[in-house]
């Protein structure tokens, strides 16, 4: 039996799954003290269940997203080693930055040396200003970690007790500014995230739950609670990931679908292409900061059931904020939810008040409550539809760097529009008809996110880069650098080595991984030719545990 818990901004949802059947669901308001809400939801779904029968509990949470949005994290100083390239003045990350001399090039060669004196004086400055967390991030550090590590060693000597994070350990992809942001946010959220995880541990301990506990990541995979401490930033946007996986588990296999989660003031969109959630080709954007965090391609549109509505000229505009609940639910102003209520597309809220709201809104334009509601409905649907179309367009226009990639580009359109989240699902029919698709409100739609958490599987990946001319290889995920004994190291050997390293990593994550199941997601081999002869090979290989969900949800029984 598995439990999925989604801790959202407004509600905390939970489900209990047994053999791909939904045994119980819960929806409770999210309280200030998350521990209370989590316990409340868990208690509902575990009623009459022997906790010893639980195999896994998976949490998805907006915790990290909120921490970052509210800047409830610690001050971190950044020691950057950018070397030549973009002007250093452009490296502004909203926190203390010291630029250090030094540089590594694209092949991982040291081209400018560190300056010890400069490092020491930077550290003196940081100690004067009382920093106890420092990130050291170099350009091309994933190709050669030695400069970052040397700076870390000096910090350990000069500022004992100071916590240090290295870019090469946390942002292994090629993108220096994103590496800086990823490292910074990781360092800054470690402490508060640790407290959050502890309250989850406590909640489970109180209920004597000994099952394996996982946290959902932005890419739709899970990681064990213990490992989440190392990489809190990977759990941003696990909310949208949860509802996407939920839909994946609830629709027929192989379907191409749009997931539309209409909330209070935002609507989250995600794509499922031929049964697989679409991953973003670039990392997550967190509060306008670009990171290297692998994430599903999700888009947040600032319109929802509780968005404020105003008249402007001879039409209406949808505001981005929320003044309160819908008027029909006792709120202060007209909202799209009131329009739904007037049109009879929801039973929630007071019909009389909804009519009152729509009448007031349309009065100056001489529109009846129904006419106003129809116009509002149309506006919301059009807005969301155009965002969906642009998501497909963006996906089609992803840059391609190989001839065959350009040739196989094709136009794909969805067959289904799946509405989840419960609120304002009345819009789904309308959006589907604009997109020429079938509308689909899956069973258990209001708790689809908790279902998504419950069916999520652990994923880990590993990227290996070998430079046979320089006879070394490096593992992107942890910056491990190894020597190659032989310059004839082949692609086949590289693949074997990558798989071996992935298996070792799986053990660390407590995963039982069948080597046969390992997927190769990226494979790039370049022969290096210097003066007409082959001097070496550059091999880049990424392997991962299979993506997917534990199972498809069968006919639900409550």
């Amino acid at each position, binding site marked *: 039996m598995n439990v999925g818990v989604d801790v959202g901004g407004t509600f905390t949802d939970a489900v209990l799954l047994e053999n791909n059947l939904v045994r119980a669901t819960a929806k409770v308001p999210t309280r200030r003290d998350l521990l209370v809400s989590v316990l409340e939801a868990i208690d509902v779904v575990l009623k009459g269940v022997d906790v010893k029968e639980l195999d896994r509990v998976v949490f998805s949470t907006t915790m990290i997203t909120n921490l970052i949005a509210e800047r409830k994290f610690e001050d971190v100083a950044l020691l950057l080693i950018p070397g030549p390239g973009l*002007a250093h003045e452009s490296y502004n990350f909203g926190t203390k930055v010291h630029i250090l001399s030094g540089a590594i090039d*694209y092949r991982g060669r040291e081209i400018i040396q560190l300056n010890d004196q400069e490092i020491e004086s930077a550290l003196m400055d940081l100690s004067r200003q009382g920093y106890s967390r420092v990130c050291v991030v170099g350009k091309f550090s994933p190709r050669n970690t030695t400069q970052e590590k040397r700076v870390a060693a000096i910090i350990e000597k000069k500022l004992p007790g100071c916590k240090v994070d290295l870019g090469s350990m946390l942002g292994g992809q090629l993108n*220096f500014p994103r590496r800086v942001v990823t490292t910074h946010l990781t360092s800054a959220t470690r402490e508060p995230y640790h407290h959050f995880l502890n309250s989850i541990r406590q909640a489970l301990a109180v209920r004597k739950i000994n099952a394996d506990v996982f946290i959902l990541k932005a890419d739709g995979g899970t990681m064990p609670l213990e490992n989440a401490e190392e990489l809190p930033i990977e759990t941003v946007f696990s909310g949208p990931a949860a509802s996407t996986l939920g839909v994946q588990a609830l629709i027929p296999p192989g379907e191409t679908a749009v997931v539309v989660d209409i909330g209070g003031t935002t609507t989250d969109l995600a794509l499922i292409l031929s049964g697989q959630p679409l991953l973003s080709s670039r990392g997550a954007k967190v509060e306008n900061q*670009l990171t290297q965090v692998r994430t599903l391609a999700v888009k947040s549109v600032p319109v929802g059931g509780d968005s404020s509505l105003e008249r402007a000229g001879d039409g209406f505009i949808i505001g981005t904020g929320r003044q309160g609940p819908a008027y029909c639910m006792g709120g202060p102003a007209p909202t799209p939810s009131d329009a739904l209520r007037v049109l009879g597309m929801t039973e929630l809220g007071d019909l009389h008040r909804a009519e009152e709201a729509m009448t007031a809104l349309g009065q100056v334009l001489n529109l009846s409550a129904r006419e106003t509601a129809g116009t509002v409905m149309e506006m919301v649907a059009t807005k969301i539809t155009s965002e969906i179309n642009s998501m497909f367009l963006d996906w089609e226009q992803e*840059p391609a760097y190989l001839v065959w990639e350009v040739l196989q580009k094709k136009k794909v359109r969805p067959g289904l529009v799946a509405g989840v989240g419960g609120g304002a699902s009345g819009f789904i029919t309308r959006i589907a008809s604009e997109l020429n698709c079938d509308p689909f409100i899956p069973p258990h739609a209001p708790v689809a996110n908790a279902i998504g958490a419950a069916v999520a599987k652990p994923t880990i990946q590993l990227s290996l880069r070998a430079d046979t001319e320089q006879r070394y290889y490096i593992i992107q995920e942890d910056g491990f650098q190894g020597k190659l004994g032989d310059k004839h190291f082949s692609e086949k050997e590289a693949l074997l080595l990558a798989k071996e390293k992935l298996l070792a990593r799986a053990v660390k994550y407590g995963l039982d991984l069948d080597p046969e199941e390992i997927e190769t997601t990226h494979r790039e081999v370049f022969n290096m030719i210097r003066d007409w002869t082959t001097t070496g090979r550059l091999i880049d290989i990424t392997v991962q545990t299979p993506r997917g969900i534990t199972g498809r949800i069968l006919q639900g029984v409550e």
Partner: protein
Amino acid sequence: MKKQEGKQTGLIFFPAFDWAISPTHPEREERLLYTRDQIFEEGIMDLPQIHEFTASLATVHDIARTHFCVPRVEDQTTEAHLIAAGAAILLAGRIVTGQIKNGFALVRPPGHHAMRVVHGNRGFCNINNEAIMVEYLRSRYGVKRVAIIDTDVHHGDGTQNIFWHDPDVLFISFHQDGRTIYPGTGFTHELGGPRAFARTINIPLQPGTSDENLLYVVDNLILPILADFKPDFIVNSAGQDNHFTDPLGSMRISAQGYAKLTEKLGPDLAVLEGGYAIETALPYVNMAIILALAGLDYTNVREPDYWPERFKESPDRSLQVRKLVDQILHYWQLRDQMPPDSRSIRGQFYERNKRIFYDTDYIEEEQLERLKLCDHCPGYLAIDSRANHGIAKSGKVKCLSVPFKACAKCRSEAAEAYHQAKKMGSHQYVYLQDKSSDIFLGYSAGSGKEWQSGG
């Protein structure tokens, strides 16, 4: 084009990591690998000033509008060629419609050695990306005057050949002196056809020329000519083999030099040409060009082995450059005033014989090019071409090209010549390329089949 402030620089990066001329050829998969690493690591694609587009394929007609590919376009191009040309076309379209402020097609394979008639690959090029893009702009958007500045270390002889008789396209190429490097042309007296005199400008520079003298040429020769010509669209054939580490060239230009050059020229669209110092030059030069186009600070882009003292120019060399600039400025003053050389005139036609060597494919081509001297338009071109492929059978083709601004008489004369050649059966293939109506006709004497494409 007028520069619109606040707009983005469009970038298409198409390294064709799965395409090579041959495994060890300079034009191989690895060429833009380190450039990719550098621009990705710098986060260039994330900058708000940059918009990355994905390439799409040019159509067969886009190629046929510019080239006579023998026997057909499909035989001279791979998909990689169509993507590279398509990238230039896509960005150019976005620029003239005002969606982006300028662009850089950072693509392979290159094109500036590809001439009007294409029998094979020469100088690593099959089709001319810039020329195809320019003809597309003129055909689709009616762009009137175009300037192409070729900054590759090798003379852009293909582009020169295509626009030789075209008064509305100004072609300026600086390059290492042709006596010291492929393709051995690009001397100051190569100034264009009788109806486009001084619309071709060649600036051969001594091996070893560095930033200082190059920028002198830009400031005192290229920019004044551009100011006189007033182009509606400026193209930069951005070869990067003038770099001080290039294995094929012997010049001493730095990444900073390239950035300043780009900033001064202010091209609407730059298209990558050569550049084979794949580790020591390309990552830095490409960065420098992108930043300069986007109006960003490029002063911190520096090669590891660059130090300014190394690149001081001697007074002798500087004097030589000044003399060269004065001489070419004098030619420019004579534009539109030079009557055609009477020895080259046969009746109503201006004639020239050409021999063209295809180094990559080892083909020798002989051409008789005839320009109709028309009083009402730039005149149509009739080209007889024969290619010797070594032991392979050689054949003759006839190519008729009608310019955009052709008069009715020239159009019908060229069409008549096409039908005559078809009837005579004296040529293996006969082609009619009418730019004024955007129609291309091809005919194979062997099969008796005719084909057609249109825009």
